[in-house]
């Protein structure tokens, strides 16, 4: 669909693109990423001839773009730029229909396109079509920016850091939307970003650039597992911080430390009260010296417990236990196989160190993958 062959571009002495060659296939979501000044935006703008290369060829749909009129080429390629880009003098409807109008669609057809596209992003036509960009929120503006790029149904859409200026929540939802739209409409998208999260989230293929060269072109998984250069590793930072040279994760990395414990001499009613006040349905029972004995559930206490009796009689030892330094995978397997939804983590002296629950496991995994969660 898009093919670069030995493309170079120089500004004065600086080589912005240094003999790059690659191919993006039809329907692929390709993300160009790299440190600022790496050539990612130049690469993008070469595709719609906003920038002309000094050497090499760019092919779009098996046609050398240097031989096409830039205006015709651009009308067949959607283009979304950073932040502004919506024309302030035009309404939402006029902005969306600008390319169809250039292509001389009839008025009815333009209107239909506007209605269909607004419906796709859940922005009602009546409410939004006649507003001006200045009346929309940043997220809505960029949504319209995306719709404008899609209006003439181009097979290819170029996006230059489109969500860079948005707040994280809006960015999240727009990323989701664009990914959905791409899958639904089967577009080929070339997307520039400097945000690795965004790249990993959206890309089928990540193209990592530095100093005008492509350092690696691979799927997000491949790039995470086998970064081809220390620069990429540094750039991915937190995403692979847990891999490779760090010690393997052990059970204690996944546990939560706050555990509801009760001595085995507690009375039935005390146990029930404790659990209901904390909103849990099982209790870790310990010996007088604090070492682990077993667990009781609120159900057992309610059905078989007698008032005044100690809970010791009802303690079960079926809940799996792991040592805190044990391989996390073992704890994970235990958690998967137990019906009790948790695993007890023990210290050297068999006192209780913590619990691994599905929630604590998910939280720890999340942190491992995306860094410390707030």
């Amino acid at each position, binding site marked *: 669909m898009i093919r670069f062959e030995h493309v170079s571009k120089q500004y004065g002495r600086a080589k912005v693109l240094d003999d790059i060659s690659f191919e993006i296939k039809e329907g692929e979501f390709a993300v160009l990423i790299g440190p600022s000044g790496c050539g990612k935006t130049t690469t993008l703008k070469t595709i719609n001839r906003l920038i002309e290369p000094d050497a090499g060829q760019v092919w779009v749909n098996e046609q050398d773009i240097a031989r096409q009129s830039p205006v015709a080429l*651009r009308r067949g390629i959607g*283009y979304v*730029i950073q932040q*502004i*880009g919506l*024309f*302030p*003098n035009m309404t939402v409807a006029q902005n969306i229909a600008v390319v169809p109008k250039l292509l001389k669609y009839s008025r009815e057809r333009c209107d239909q396109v506007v209605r269909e596209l607004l419906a796709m992003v859940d922005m009602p036509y009546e409410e939004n079509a006649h507003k*001006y960009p200045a009346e929309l929120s940043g997220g809505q503006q960029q949504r319209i920016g995306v719709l404008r790029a899609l209006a003439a149904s181009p097979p290819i859409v170029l996006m230059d850091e489109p969500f860079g200026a948005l707040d994280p929540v809006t960015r999240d939802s727009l990323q989701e939307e664009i990914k959905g739209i791409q899958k639904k409409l089967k577009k080929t998208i070339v997307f520039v970003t400097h945000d690795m999260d965004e790249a990993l989230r959206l890309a089928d293929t990540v193209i990592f650039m530095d100093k005008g060269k492509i350092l690696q072109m691979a799927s997000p998984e491949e790039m995470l597992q086998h970064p081809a250069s220390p620069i990429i590793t540094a750039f991915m930072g937190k995403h692979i911080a847990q891999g490779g040279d760090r010690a393997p994760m052990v059970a204690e990395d996944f546990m939560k430390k706050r555990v509801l414990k009760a001595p085995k001499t507690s009375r039935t009613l005390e146990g029930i009260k404790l659990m209901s006040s904390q909103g849990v349905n099982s209790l870790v029972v310990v010996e007088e010296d604090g070492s682990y004995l077993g667990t009781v559930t609120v159900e057992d206490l309610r059905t078989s417990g007698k008032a005044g009796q100690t809970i010791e009689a009802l303690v079960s030892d079926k809940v799996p236990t792991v040592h805190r330094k044990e391989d996390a995978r073992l704890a994970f397997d235990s958690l998967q196989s137990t019906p009790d939804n948790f695993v007890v983590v023990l210290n050297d002296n068999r006192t209780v160190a913590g619990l691994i629950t599905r929630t604590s496991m998910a939280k720890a995994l999340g942190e491992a993958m995306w860094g410390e969660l707030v």
Partner: protein
Amino acid sequence: MKFAEFVGKNHQILLDSLLRHIELVTISVLGGMLLAIPLGIWLTRHRRLAGPVLALAGTVQTIPGLVMLGFALILLGTGMLPAVVVLTLYAILPVLRNTYLGIVEVDRGYTEAARGIGMTDLQMLCSVELPIALPTIVSGIRLSTVYIVSWTTLAGMIGAGGLGDLIWTGLATYNKQYILAGAIPSALLALVLGGLISLLERRLVSAGVRRARV
């Protein structure tokens, strides 16, 4: 003689002078716009020339009106023509400068988006650059108009007529009434024309651009 009496007696002369004044102003400002707006647009496409051309226009502006009219009198004789030529020259600069700056200051994001989605240069000019630059261009026109209304009073000197005639007559004969009868309508005319242009601006400038500027 009271001023009101004077006006009542001479109302035909006053009206004729006022109409001639409006005529001179309109022709000069329209002529200035016709020259300045295309030139300003052209300069945005040839920015290297913008500095020298704007400097030249600025220099013309610094030549005293009296001197310019004197030259025009020598070269073109008396009447409306030399006055219109000189006033048009004066009308150019504010419109030229504001047209150029208005378009140059259109955010690059807009022009890049326009180019990127496949607009030709002319389409970009008409549907993006000019609408966004319009408030700046119109304020240049307003400035020109207000200046020209006042400078047109000088044109009376070389027989072009207008409210200047009354003022010069008053000055020559120490007649306060004549001076006032020329000066007051001239001041009011400046205010009214300025107001009319503002009204026109409201109709022409897209609501979206007005909102974006607030």
